[in-house]
């Protein structure tokens, strides 16, 4: 069976487009915190009410992913991504005119989130169409902007808010988000034959390997974000200063970028099966998450810093290999629809994970239980992945024909 395409000039142009668009989706998502203080003061609302804005945007991105995927199968990925870019920008532009919190929920939350949902999965799948063995490397490079953009967007948005207040800053952010549109314009129709598109793709639902994969990824999501939410608080809880805690987060972000690229590059070498690599990085991430509160209890800053660096690296590493596993489970033709569905289902994990860890902290008084449970979710997800059919085989199934289904 001949291998599919694995590179080419336009493939790497697409990786560049993925780099830019991922930065504008997830990098922006992670920098919305800059507006938090401004909104609390201007709208005189509680912190919880304001944090719903980001929650709605994240949930919308994941919820509308299957729809974005289905539209790509039915129509043209290019149109879908360009529309998504316009919507993402429109959401922020409209938000700049908001007069009440509900406006922000609708514009910054729903409209922008919908736009992001139409952008992310189609971009990922379009890029993967250009690669076979090196898809993990392509994605690793494409996603490396997610960590980088927090470094750039956070201070940039601070500056914009200081110069133009939150209204002007949101307007300009809307303009910047429109840069996703040229990324979408770069998508070209590929000559791969597509199976007759079924809008909805619900047929994957009844297949056990896909359900197994979804269950595992949902568990990953439940645990993965906990350190991003609680690590600063954990550091401060054991007595480190604000700057020390912020530094830990910055370096974790830096090793995240490194982990994505290194993992993508090493996965592309083809020495290990993609699903084995995923389990390797995820189980290590789980272990380091559990070690985080334990290392903080030692009271030693270098120890906590080291464990955080290792968590960042492994956490980033696993993201490069998640999507490349999908076509091995459902086949290349159904990759688009399945990726969309995975996004939707894993959002449940994300929605439940952070509040659960917060709850455990409130009940027990410290973060030990939250982090141990979060790490355990990742380890449990790895165990579930071992039940995939033909898991213990040493070689990946050849692309696009055989899948885990047989």
């Amino acid at each position, binding site marked *: 069976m001949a291998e599919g395409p694995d590179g080419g000039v336009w493939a790497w142009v697409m990786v560049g487009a993925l780099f830019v668009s991922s930065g504008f989706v997830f990098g922006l998502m992670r920098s919305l915190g800059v507006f938090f203080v401004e909104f609390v*003061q*201007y709208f*005189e609302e509680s912190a919880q009410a304001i944090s719903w804005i980001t929650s709605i945007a994240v949930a919308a991105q994941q919820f509308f992913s299957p729809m974005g995927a289905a539209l790509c199968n039915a129509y043209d990925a290019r149109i879908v991504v*360009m529309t998504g870019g316009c919507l993402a920008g429109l959401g922020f532009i409209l938000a700049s005119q908001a007069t009440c919190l509900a406006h922000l929920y609708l514009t910054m939350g729903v409209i922008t989130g919908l736009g992001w949902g139409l952008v992310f999965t189609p971009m990922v799948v379009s890029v993967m169409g250009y690669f076979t063995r090196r898809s993990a490397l392509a994605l690793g490079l494409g996603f490396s902007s997610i960590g980088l953009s927090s470094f750039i967007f956070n201070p940039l948005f601070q500056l914009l808010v*200081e*110069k*133009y*207040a939150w*209204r*002007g*800053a949101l*307007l*300009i952010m*809307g*303009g*910047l988000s*429109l*840069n996703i*549109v*040229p990324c979408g*314009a*770069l998508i*070209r129709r590929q000559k791969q034959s597509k199976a007759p598109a079924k809008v909805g793709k619900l047929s994957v639902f009844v297949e056990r390997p896909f359900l197994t994969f979804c269950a595992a990824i949902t568990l990953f999501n439940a645990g993965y974000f906990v350190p991003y939410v609680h690590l600063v608080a954990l550091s401060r809880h054991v007595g480190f200063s604000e700057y020390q805690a912020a530094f830990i987060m910055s370096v974790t972000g830096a090793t995240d970028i490194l982990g994505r690229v290194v993992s993508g590059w090493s996965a592309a070498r083809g020495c290990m099966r993609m699903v084995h690599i995923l389990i390797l990085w995820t189980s290590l991430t789980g272990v380091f998450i559990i070690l985080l509160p334990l290392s903080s209890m030692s009271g030693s800053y270098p120890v906590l810093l080291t464990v955080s660096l290792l968590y960042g690296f492994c956490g980033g590493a696993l993201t490069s290999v998640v999507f490349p596993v999908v076509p091995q489970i459902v086949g290349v033709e159904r990759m688009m629809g399945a990726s969309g569905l995975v996004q939707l289902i894993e959002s449940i994990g994300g929605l439940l994970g952070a509040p659960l860890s917060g709850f455990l902290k409130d009940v027990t008084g410290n973060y030990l239980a939250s982090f141990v449970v979060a790490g355990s979710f990742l380890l449990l997800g790895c165990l579930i992945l071992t039940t995939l059919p033909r898991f213990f085989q040493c070689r990946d199934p050849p692309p696009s024909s055989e899948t885990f289904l047989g």
Partner: protein
Amino acid sequence: MECTWTGNQNKLPNITGYWKKDGNEIDSRLTVPLENEQYNLKGVFDIVGEESLGNYSCVFGSEAKIEFVLAAPQMGEVRDKPIVSYAGDSVVIACKMEEPKPKPSTWHWYKANGTDKALIDAAAEPHRYQIHSEGGKSTLTVRNLTQADAGFYYCGAVYLISTSLGRLEVRVITFLEPLKPFIAIVVEVLVLVAVILLYERKSKKKSITGSQKTKKEKRENSGGEESSSVRQRKV
């Protein structure tokens, strides 16, 4: 206020101690005995008003001096960068007295008028100003902003002995200001999209003319093959 000094090498049995305020001696000098290896000087002062605030020092002979600063609680961190808002919009500015410090009895807000400060009366102009004070925090909301509202504002935490002030700056801008960079970015996006789509049309045209040439060649070749097969059949 109480000062304790452990003395130096020559532990004299008695030493003169006195209090100073802002560099001037107050009260009479006392003879302080050496007790348990230390000298103890206590002073009791009535705080009657703002005049009671200042730098106090207790002096032991000509050897040791300990300084106290008696002042009203300092205002908590206020934004040193100007707070920006839009004409026609409203702005909320806030002052805070940090937790362990005592809470003021009330808050006042002032608008700077040259070198003067004019007290803001929220009750007199409720559609323009709103002051919300709660213990250690106070916010001033200014509505329907105009350029005249730009400038410095002072928040005052009122205590019995004095008022602590904090200064904030408000800047009023119009929507044209962020609109300029926004339009620049939109133009950039449109140009990029146009360039990308034009480039693709150009390269498609190239490949179409190229494939037309190869199609022509194929037809010529297959024409040759057909005629040979026809010949074979005929034979």
